[in-house]
């Protein structure tokens, strides 16, 4: 066990989450945006696991992490399918090209 308080894990998770959020806002490639989304989900997982280690009565945090893993897999599958479908229409994967609905 590496001795680190739960707060250290929370800070680390917050930093990872903000890196992912920054990536979604700043990057213009849809693939990189999806990867940033995975980073944010990973940060949430780290918080759940660290919280469960701090209160180890029942493994509910780990079960929730398992469910988040499944949701991340579903999100990646649908997101990548959308990217492929979008590429078929516009021949690009830049998010700025998705402007058909712009008023």
């Amino acid at each position: 066990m590496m001795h680190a308080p739960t707060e250290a894990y929370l800070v680390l998770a917050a930093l990872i989450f903000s890196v992912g959020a920054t990536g979604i806002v700043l990057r213009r490639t849809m693939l990189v945006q999806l990867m940033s989304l995975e980073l944010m989900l990973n940060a949430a997982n780290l918080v759940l696991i660290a919280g469960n280690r701090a209160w180890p009565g029942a493994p509910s945090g780990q079960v929730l992490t398992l469910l988040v893993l499944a949701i991340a897999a579903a999100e990646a599958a649908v997101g990548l399918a959308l990217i492929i479908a979008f590429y078929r229409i516009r021949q690009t994967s830049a998010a700025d090209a998705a402007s058909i609905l712009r008023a």
Partner: protein
Amino acid sequence: MLPGLAWLVLASLTLLTAVLTVTSRSPLRGACALLAHIVMLSLFFLALSAEFLAVLQVLVYGGATVVLFIFVMMLLGGEALPPPLAPRPRWRIALFVAAGVMLGVTLAGAFVVAALPVRPETPAGFGTVANVGGSLFREHFIAFELVGILLTAAMVSAIAITRSRGWHELPEASKASVTDGEVAAASALEGQPG
């Protein structure tokens, strides 16, 4: 002292790989950084005595999701992605050195994690498959069922979204370069009048 130092080094490397995932100009390099990030995060899971989740993290994220990302990059081809940076030899050498240092520190961190004793206050078998699975199938069974439905819906919708469109739905521009024979073959396959 050493465990705290190892934690700090591992945490900063995890953060560094997260930043690399976001800032890499080539999405393929970003995916590789994401893979390193996921493996290092699983080390943290090990340190938090969630052994089953650590294994599952590498299996599901590293083995399925990242590979899916790289697969889509391959499917889209190079022209869909932004061009890589112009080759700069010094920068490249620095990248290789950083990757080597990262690998070494990660392995060292794994040994440190494996060697240190577990904190006594966790109940026996805290992060094992039996414990997590028992809780999943007793207290969280409805959530498990719902996630099953969600995964099925995601799979069906992914297939529905990426299914190649019928001939009658294609834009006129892409029909121009197709011969009559191909039109007839496509119509026969679809069971629709050309």
